[in-house]
């Protein structure tokens, strides 16, 4: 295995009650790259990334088998709080914390870790908002409610919140699905610039988006990983017929 291996997924299966949503997934996610997860609705994309940061097991009746190895250690043998503190997550729907200002939304991750140094927090809040391409729009209203921002701004706020704690891995579940093209392209630019520092896994329904920003692409179908490789290979020269059908829109 190349040394740029960040997360290795071994024989990962996941269930909701009796329903198996993921079937024996094996793949390696590379450090400082963007891995795009594509596949039809209900194929298990969200379940997959929620298994990586151990959110899946919180659902009622949920079960996980297999290993998710982060820098050589199985996250399922680690404290889930530690696992999640090393990974940031951005959800499909923007979910800024209610009754919290823009500033507090970004600062809360640090505060929950017991960091009190006001100057340091101020600096991190500003830098995170800058990285999330939101700073210019909110610098004069940091103390207004985060939930009062527009949908696209809220999603960028959630990205700022996720990167403020400086995680190693960023998991994004269709972060741009509810956004206009301008916000979407801002977020894409942001992700491309963030991959210098982070390992990014992004679920997307948008084929062009996967092709534009993904270094690697994984195609899921009915809980199985059908194809995984360099994005150029998956898109231009898919090995599996089903991948080709999905990518060219001739699916189902």
């Amino acid at each position, binding site marked *: 295995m190349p040394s740029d291996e960040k997360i290795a997924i071994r024989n990962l299966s996941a269930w909701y009650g009796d329903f198996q949503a993921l079937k024996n997934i094996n793949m390696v996610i590379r450090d400082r790259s963007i891995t795009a997860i594509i596949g039809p609705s209900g194929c298990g994309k969200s379940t997959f990334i929620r298994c990586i*940061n151990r*959110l899946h097991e*919180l659902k009622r009746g949920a079960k996980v088998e297999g290993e998710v190895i982060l820098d050589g250690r199985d996250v399922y043998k680690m404290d889930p*709080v*530690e*696992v*999640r*503190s*090393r*990974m*940031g*997550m951005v*959800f499909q*729907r923007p*979910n800024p*914390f*209610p*009754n*919290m200002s823009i500033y507090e939304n970004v600062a*809360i*991750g640090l*505060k*929950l*870790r017991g960091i009190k140094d006001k100057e340091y927090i101020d600096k991190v809040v500003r830098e995170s908002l800058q990285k999330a391409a939101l700073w210019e729009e909110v610098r004069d209203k940091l103390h207004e409610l985060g939930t009062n921002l527009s949908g696209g701004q809220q999603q960028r706020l*959630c990205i700022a*919140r*996720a990167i403020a*704690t400086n*995680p190693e891995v960023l998991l994004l579940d269709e972060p741009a699905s509810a956004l206009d093209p301008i916000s979407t392209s801002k977020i894409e630019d942001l992700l491309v610039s963030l991959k210098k520092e982070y390992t990014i896994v992004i679920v997307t329904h948008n084929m062009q988006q996967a092709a534009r920003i993904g270094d690697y692409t994984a195609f899921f179908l009915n809980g199985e990983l059908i194809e995984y490789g360099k994005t150029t290979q998956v898109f231009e020269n898919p090995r599996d017929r089903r991948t080709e059908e999905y990518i060219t829109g001739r699916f189902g």
Partner: protein
Amino acid sequence: MEMAKTKLIKDKIFTIYCFISLSFAILPLIHIVGTTLVRGIKAVSLEFFISLPKPPGEVGGGIANAIEGSIILAALTMSFSIPVGILTAIYLSEYQDNWFRNLVRLLSDTFAGTPSIVAGVFAYSLIVRKFGFSAIAGAFALSILAIPTIVRSSEEALKLVPIDVREAGLSLGAEKWKVITKIVIRAARPGIITGILLALARIMGETAPLLFTAFGNPEFVRSPFEPVSALPLVIYVYATSPYPDWHQKAWGAALILMLMVLAINLAVKYKLRR
């Protein structure tokens, strides 16, 4: 054309009908508020607020002891009921289903329907019979009434906070209890505060449970272990006394109580609108 006319008439009749019904509902209310205002205002003076009552039959004095007592009772009740109520609500809404949780919910729902006099009897047999009348005993009885209200509204408010918010908190690498106390409670705060204020408005006006717990006291109190007076108690005692001056004071106390409860309800309205 004819059809339209009939419709218009039916509409008018309906409006008038509504208006008459409304009057039936609202006129007594206006009458009560009006009478309390007119009669109560005559009793109100500076002395009324700051001095203690004169011995029975003598004119003058005030109800400072009752105002103090009501504040002490409210403070004691709330400082006990708010943490207990919110923590119970957190337990009910944030943790897995099990038999103990169902028991807690059953208890809380049962208490929610408790007539206030029963809460008083309960406090009487549990506390007063051993330790005598006291503010603590009164606050205990009032807490039995306040806690279920706070539990219920807090639980509702917590349940309205989307799962997404909890997951986002956990995904930041925070422990569950920190996510609850720092993020989820915060999100549910308006609903929780509303519940607290409603509970407060309710206990401020309770009389029955205080009769045999807080009991009443013509003096200021120095500790929560002494019996205390309260506005509803003075209203009850003064209104049923044979002295005209006390009758007037009862109206005055009623006015103050009414204004306090009104203020709390306005606070709730304001909170809800935001």
